[in-house]
């Protein structure tokens, strides 16, 4: 693994030449436990001047931002939340490397800001003591002081400062209290301090030493506690319902339904609005330009390409709004608990549920949502199986084929017909494929290191809305930048394949490059019951699944999207058998066709090997399954 040599394209943010070279600024790192409000603090002080990228080769995210205080500019790196510096997990390793100055993509630090949860000082001090023992310049930030105060608790800050020998700053990242003083201190530190020399990486701390350190943390916390905080009965009272044997799952189901409906239906008006916008733009160009290649390039290539990227934004924004609210409020941990039993039967964990449910709307935001899973292997396994969940882009294809080929037989009068059963069947096989693949992966290449699964259950807290808004902005930006470029590129490529070579391609699509590829694929497609036209359709479906509908409309020279595609349905009925249609449906259920998904997998996993692996695996599964359906069906005498 090339941990020390980032390649240009995955090194986000790269030091920008010219206008503002952040690599020359003093650097600070923010360390702290998960749920300590560390990220809220980071968002508060960096605002929009932050960038999210990846550390090369790992799934850990890299967050950096620029802060200017008292006229001094400095760079802040938000480290992944860790309970300890002991480098056991990916997150801890990366955090330790950054702090030790051992990463070549980051300069050595001026110092570390250790964020502590003041309502749980004794646990937070464990990491603080490790940092102090590691002899990096460190300051302590006691976050959530407002919460502590409202529960009647207090901490003797002067005593804590004396005991530890470091500066202590009380703040509330949510309300902003205490931040000016912290920023002033950091500004002075940036101006007068200097980068700490590179250190050797910390080693895994032996258990007895860790036990002593925790005992020390407990003692110090006891000594500096002024008034003990009242118990957090609100969380207990809420949990009586949220974790109730009957009510709990019901509340969970309701939450899941709300999230899903919002992504599926709520995003629709926005998506249609964007669609209309791009169509309008396209029409504008068509009306004002002479017919020809350039016009086609602009409308069918560039504008269609941009449209294909931007159309995902409403779903991504809505999903991440919900995720952020659920995480901040603390409900996510309870939801993960409820789902854990079920998910662990295939080797996954409770937090995998939300990405999978989201993938029923679209796998792109679903895969981005796997960010919430801390365990690397569980995260990868969830990413891997997410595309199997029947996404909404498959629906137009399903609707077309089922509408054209499945008779209107009634199974249960008034409720269930054969068409609906077929649709449910397709959803079902997608789900089964997902769970089976998860089981296979977690039993072999992604087998869990036998570490115990523990998850903190934080108290319920009100969300920090500004921080949430910034998180949404980050996600949208990541998507646009990383996935957007690939999606746009593939759309342009597809346009090229369909439009060239001139002038043959204009007359007959069979003569275009795409047509030639389809014809060349025909021998491989015939055993599945497909011909070269379907081949071209499949090629275009690789860009995005639903594109096949318009591509086929073009090929069969029918009007696209006229009420329920009746024209296209008729054309298809003449061109393929019902069995072939079933085979095509199965192929769509299993294969990885969406470039956007491939692009986002690349972004979230940090390397190309995973999306390529997934593509090949799902292609094989799709091909073989379609083959079995068609040939097996033929053997059994079906048509």
């Amino acid at each position, binding site marked *: 693994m090339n941990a020390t040599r980032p390649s240009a394209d995955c090194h986000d943010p790269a030091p920008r030449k010219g206008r503002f070279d952040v690599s020359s600024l003093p650097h600070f790192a923010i360390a702290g436990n998960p749920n300590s409000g560390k990220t809220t603090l980071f968002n508060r002080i960096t605002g929009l001047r932050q960038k999210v990228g990846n550390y090369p080769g790992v799934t850990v995210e890299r967050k950096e931002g620029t802060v200017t205080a008292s006229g001094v500019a400095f760079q802040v790196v938000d480290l992944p939340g860790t309970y300890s510096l002991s480098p056991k997990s990916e997150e801890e390793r990366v955090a330790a490397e950054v702090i030790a100055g051992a990463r070549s993509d980051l300069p050595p630090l001026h110092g570390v800001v250790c964020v502590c949860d003041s309502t749980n000082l004794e*646990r937070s001090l464990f990491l603080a003591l490790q940092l102090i023992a590691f002899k990096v310049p460190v300051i302590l930030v006691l976050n959530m002081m407002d919460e502590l105060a409202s529960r009647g608790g207090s901490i003797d800050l002067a005593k804590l400062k004396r005991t530890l020998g470091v500066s202590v700053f009380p703040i509330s990242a949510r309300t902003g209290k205490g931040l000016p003083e912290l920023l002033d201190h950091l500004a002075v530190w940036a101006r007068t301090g200097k980068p700490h020399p590179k250190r050797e990486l910390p080693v895994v701390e032996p*258990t007895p030493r860790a036990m002593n350190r925790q005992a020390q943390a407990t003692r110090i916390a006891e000594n500096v506690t002024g008034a003990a905080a009242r118990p957090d009965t609100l969380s207990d009272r809420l949990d009586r319902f949220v974790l109730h044997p009957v009510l709990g799952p019901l509340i969970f189901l309701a939450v899941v339904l709300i999230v899903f409906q919002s992504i599926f239906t709520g995003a629709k008006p926005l998506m249609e609005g964007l669609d209309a916008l791009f169509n309008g733009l396209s029409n504008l160009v068509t009306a004002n330009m002479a017919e020809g290649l350039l016009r086609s390039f602009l409308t069918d290539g560039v504008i269609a390409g941009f449209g294909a990227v931007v159309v995902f934004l409403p779903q991504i924004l809505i999903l991440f709004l919900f995720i952020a609210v659920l995480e901040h409020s603390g409900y996510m941990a309870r939801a993960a*608990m409820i789902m854990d039993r079920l998910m*662990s039967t295939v080797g996954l964990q409770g937090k995998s549920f939300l990405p999978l449910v989201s993938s029923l709307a679209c796998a792109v935001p679903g895969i981005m949502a796997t960010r919430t899973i801390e365990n690397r292997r569980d995260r990868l396994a969830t990413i891997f199986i997410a595309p199997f969940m029947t996404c909404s882009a498959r629906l137009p294809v399903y609707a077309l084929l089922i509408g054209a080929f499945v008779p209107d037989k009634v199974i249960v009068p008034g409720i269930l017909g054969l068409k609906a059963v077929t649709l449910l069947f397709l959803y079902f096989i997608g789900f089964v494929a997902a769970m089976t693949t998860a089981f296979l992966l977690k039993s072999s290449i992604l087998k869990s290191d036998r570490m115990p699964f523990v998850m903190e259950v934080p108290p319920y807290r009100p969300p920090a809305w500004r921080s949430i808004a910034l998180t949404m902005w980050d996600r949208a930006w990541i998507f646009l930048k990383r996935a957007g470029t690939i999606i746009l590129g593939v759309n342009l490529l597809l346009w090229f394949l369909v439009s060239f070579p001139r002038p043959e391609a204009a007359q007959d699509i069979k003569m275009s490059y795409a047509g030639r590829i389809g014809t060349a694929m025909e021998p491989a497609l015939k055993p599945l019951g497909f011909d070269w036209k379907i081949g071209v359709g499949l090629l275009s479906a690789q860009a995005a699944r639903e594109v096949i509908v318009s591509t086929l409309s073009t090929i069969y020279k029918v009007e696209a999207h006229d009420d329920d595609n009746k024209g296209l349905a008729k054309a298809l009925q003449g061109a393929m058998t019902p069995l072939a249609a079933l085979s095509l449906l199965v192929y769509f259920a299993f294969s990885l066709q969406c470039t956007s998904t491939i692009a986002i997998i690349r972004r979230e996993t940090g390397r190309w090997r995973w999306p390529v692996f997934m593509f090949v695996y799902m292609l094989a599964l799709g091909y073989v399954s379609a083959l079995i359906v068609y040939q097996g069906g033929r053997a059994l005498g079906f048509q």
Partner: protein
Amino acid sequence: MAKTPPSTQTCLTDLKKGQAALITAMEMGDESLNKLVEMGLGVGRRVSLVGRAPMGDPVVIEVIGYRLAMRAKEARLIKVAPVEGTVRVTLGDGKNPPRPRRGDAPSKTTSIRKKTRPPTKRSPGKKTR
């Protein structure tokens, strides 16, 4: 090192809801032990069972002032000795009493079985929180 037969050991999962206990042993590999120690568990630490998830798994425990969810399979490896009566899981009652003693954190290896003996500094009549 005398080993008491496993069947007589109380596990973390055997505790009743709201019941507190001291950890007497953690029967697991070094790596797992290390991780749990960093999360605040360890022989001699005070731990309580807060509740269980709707399906019974995972269980929620409270240790060093915060709450953890743990799978029952792993929680069963943690052996405990219940402390006197059921103790309400609180962070303090608003007064300013000393925090409860957690027992001595040993610097020896944690597989040594600790004999349970009543905490010496307390008398039954005094409140412990």
